[in-house]
C-alpha cells in the first residue's frame, strides 16, 4: 500500500479506539444525540480546518482564520441588525469580502515573496483589529431567518439531531474533498507543496493557485464566521480566538504533513472529530477541567508528528540513504 495513506489510517484507527474506550466508560456517548451535537459544536472549527488543510498541503500556513471568523461575524451582525439587510443578502457579500481578503494575502505571498507566516500574521492583526474597531461588544442578531435556521435539523434514528450547520460542515468536507483529490486545482495544490520551483517549470500556474488557496482559506473562514454567528446568534469581535491553531492541530492530527505535499481532507474531519471527542468526554466526566482538552490535543499532536516522521523518513527522506540499484 502507498505509504502516504498510513498516517490517515493511523488517525482513523486511533479515533475508533478512542471512541470505543469512551463508550466503554460512558455508554451514553454511543448515541446519535451525542454524535449530532458533536457535529454542531465543531462545525465552525471543521469548516475553517478544511481551508487550513489546503493551505498546509501547499506548504503554507494561515494564521488569520480566527480573526476572519471574528470579523465576518461582526460585519454580518452589523449589516443585519443596523442596516436591516436580509441575511441571505449579507452572506454572499461577506463571503466575497473574505475571499478577497485572502486573495490579497495570497498575492502578497506569491508576488512579493513574503513568507505566509508573516503575511497571515499581519492579516490576523488587521482583521481582528478591524473587528474590534467596529464594535467592542457582542452584537446579538435577532432575526427571523436566524431563528429558523438555528432550529432546522434532520432527525437521526435514536433521537439525535443533525443541525443545519452540522450538515453544512459535512457538505463542505464532501465538496472540498472532491476539489482536493479530484480536480486539477487540487493537484496543483499538492504540486506546489511538493516543490514550487519544479511545479512552476512543469507549467503549474503557481501564482493563480497560491492566490486561490488563500482566497479559499479566507472564504471558508468567512463561512465559518457565519456558522459561528448562527451558532451563537451574535457577532463578537473576539470570537474564535486561537481557532487557527486548533484547526492546524486538526489538520496535522488528520495526517497532513506540516511541511506540505501530503495530506487528506477526510483526515482533517477525523482530526476535528477527535478533538470533539476529547471535549465530549470531559463534559461527560464532569470533574475534569476543560483545559484537559488542550493537554490531550497536545499529546495527540506530538504523537502524530512522531508518526509522520517515521513514515515519511522511511519513504522519501534522506534520499541518499534510500535503497536502489547502482
Amino acid at each position, binding site marked *: 500500500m*502507498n*505509504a*502516504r495513506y498510513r498516517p490517515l489510517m493511523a488517525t482513523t484507527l486511533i479515533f475508533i479506539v478512542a471512541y470505543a474506550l469512551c463508550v466503554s466508560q460512558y455508554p451514553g456517548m454511543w448515541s446519535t444525540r451525542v454524535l449530532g451535537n458533536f457535529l454542531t459544536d465543531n462545525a465552525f472549527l471543521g469548516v475553517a480546518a478544511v481551508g487550513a488543510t489546503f493551505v498546509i498541503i501547499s506548504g503554507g500556513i494561515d494564521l488569520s482564520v480566527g480573526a476572519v471568523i471574528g470579523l465576518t461575524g461582526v460585519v454580518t451582525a452589523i449589516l443585519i441588525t443596523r442596516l436591516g439587510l436580509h441575511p441571505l443578502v449579507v452572506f454572499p457579500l461577506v463571503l466575497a469580502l473574505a475571499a478577497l481578503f485572502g486573495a490579497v494575502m495570497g498575492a502578497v505571498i506569491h508576488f512579493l515573496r513574503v513568507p505566509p507566516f508573516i503575511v497571515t500574521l499581519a492579516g490576523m492583526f488587521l482583521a481582528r483589529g478591524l473587528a474590534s474597531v467596529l464594535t467592542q461588544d457582542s452584537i446579538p442578531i435577532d432575526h427571523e431567518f436566524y431563528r429558523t435556521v438555528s432550529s432546522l435539523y434532520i432527525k437521526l434514528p435514536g433521537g439525535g439531531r443533525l443541525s443545519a450547520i452540522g450538515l453544512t460542515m459535512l457538505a463542505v468536507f464532501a465538496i472540498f474533498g*472532491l476539489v482536493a483529490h*479530484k*480536480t*486539477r486545482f*487540487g*493537484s*496543483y495544490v*499538492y*504540486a506546489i*507543496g*511538493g*516543490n514550487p*520551483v*519544479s*511545479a*512552476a*517549470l*512543469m*507549467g*503549474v*500556474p503557481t501564482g493563480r493557485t497560491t492566490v486561490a488557496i488563500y482566497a479559499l482559506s479566507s472564504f471558508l473562514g468567512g463561512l465559518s464566521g457565519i456558522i459561528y454567528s448562527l451558532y451563537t446568534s451574535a457577532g463578537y469581535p473576539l470570537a474564535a480566538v486561537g481557532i487557527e491553531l486548533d484547526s492546524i492541530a486538526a489538520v496535522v492530527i488528520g495526517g497532513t504533513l506540516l511541511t506540505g*505535499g*501530503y495530506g487528506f481532507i477526510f483526515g482533517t474531519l477525523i482530526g476535528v472529530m477527535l478533538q470533539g471527542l476529547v471535549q465530549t468526554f470531559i463534559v461527560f466526566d464532569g470533574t475534569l477541567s476543560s483545559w484537559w482538552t488542550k493537554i490531550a490535543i497536545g499529546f495527540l499532536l506530538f504523537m502524530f508528528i512522531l508518526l509522520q516522521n517515521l513514515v515519511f523518513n522511511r*519513504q*522519501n527522506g534522506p*534520499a*541518499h*540513504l534510500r535503497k*536502489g*540499484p*547502482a
Partner: protein
Amino acid sequence: MTNDQRAVLQATGITKTFGSHAALKNVDIAFQAGEVHALLGENGAGKSTLIKILTGAYSLDQGTIRLDGEEVSFATPLQAQALGIGTVYQEVNLLPNMTVMDNLYIGRQPRRFGLVDRKRMEREARAVLSGYGLDIDVRADLSTFSVAVQQIVAIARAVALSGKVLILDEPTASLDAAEVEKLFDIVRRLKARGLAIVFITHFLDQVFALSDRVTVLRNGQLIGTRAISDINRTEVVKMMLGKDLALHHGEILAEESEVGETLVSLRDYGLKGRVEPINLDIHRGEVIGVAGLLGSGRTEMARLLFGIDTADSGRIAVDGRDATIRSPRDAVALGFGFCPEDRKLDGIFGDLSVRENIVMAMQARLGWFRALTRDEQMEIAGNYIEALDIRTASAELPVKLLSGGNQQKVILARWLATDPRFLILDEPTRGIDVGAHAEIVRVISRLREDGLALVVISSELDEVVSYSSRVVVMRDRAIAAELHGADINVARIVETIASHHAEAEQ
C-alpha cells in the same frame, strides 16, 4: 540576423544579465523542423539559461523569440507548453510527492464531468511509459523510483507536450547505455515526425550519433552553428574551449611497486544482498579504478566503504588497525571523503554560498569549537575555485545559481578541502564539460602523487585507463577481476566486463 524561413523556433539578439554577470550576450539561434540540434558549451556557458529564456522560465533583457515566424513572449513555462514546446530542464524538475501518473499529466489530466479521470489517466500513463520499456506502477509515488526512472518520466512528459519543439537539457546524465539507446530511438521518431529537437549534453559521442547541427556557446556568446557533417570532434572541442585540449590519455601509469604502504584493507567486507564480501588492499599513492555496468554493485561498494550502509560481514582495517565504520561520520573521522554519484540529491545546499558549501565538510571535521574565521574560509574557497576553475561571479553566490557542472565541482572541492587520506569518487566527471573533464583527471593524478589513496568509479573507460594504478571490474555485486599494468586498457576492460557477462548467461 535575417529570418530563417524554415525555423520553428528562432531567437535573435538574446541578452540576459544576472546582477552584474552577463549570462548571455546577443545570442542568435534557430531550430528547424525535423532536426536534432545540439547545444554545446562549457559549464556555465549559458546553455540552460538560454533554454529557460526560450521557454518562459526566465524573462529576457533583450532580444526576440519567434515561433513559426510569429513573435512570442512567454511569461511562464505554461504558455510555452501550451504552444507545443516540451522541455526537460537540467534540474530534476518533477514532484517527488506525487504519483508517477500525476507527474506525467499534471496540468492536462483527462477529465470527466470536470473531475480528473484517474482510471483513464492510469491507463494512458501505462501505455505511454511502456513505449519507453518501463512497466511500473504508475500510482506509486515518484520518489519511490530511481533517478533513471524519474528521468524517463520527465522525458516522457516533455515528449507528450512537444507538438513542435522538444528540448532536452542533459537528459542522459543518469541513464545507462540501453536507456540512452531507447531515448535516441524516440528522438529519431519524433524527428521524422517533423519536430525540432534541442539536445544539450557533454557526451560528444552522443552529439555525433544523434544530431544534425551543433551550436556552441562560450561565456554567454554565440561561437557558431555548424552542420555535423562539416565538423569533427577536435573542432567542436576547440569551439567550446577556445583552445585545443591537451589530452592526458594514453600514458600508462607507474608500476604498482611504487605505491606506498597499505592504508585501507578489506577482508570479506560485505553486506548481504547489496555487496558480496570484498577482499581488497588500498595503498597510499594509488588510484583504484572501478569499472562495471550500471547495477554491478559499484555504487554499493562505495556506500559501504563510506559507512552509508553498514557492513554485516568481514573486517576493515585502516593503517593496520581494525576499524568500525557505521556512519559517514565515522568514515570522515578516519580521513575518508566521498563524492557521491547523484550530486543533485546528495550534496548541494542550494541556498548556501559557494564558500559555505566548500568549507562545510571541513568545518564538520574540525568540530564546533574550532570555527574557521571568515578570512580562512575565503582563502580556502578561493583556492579551490581557482584550482577547479569553478565559474562563479563570487564565492558568496548561492550555489543554486551556478550552472549544473559548476555545482558538481563545488562538491568535489568540499571533499578535497577536508584533506582526506582516502577519497572515494563516484562518477566524478558526469555532467562536467570536456575541459573540466581533463582538469578533474589531472586533479586525480595530482592527488595520487600527493600520496592519497583513491577509489574512482567511472563509466568513462578511457579516463579510468588514464589515471588508474589498478582497475577493479565489478559484476553481480562482487569484484569479478582485477587488472594490472599493461592489462589496463579500454579494450581489455570492455572484454573483461563482457566475458563475465557471457559466462553469466551460460
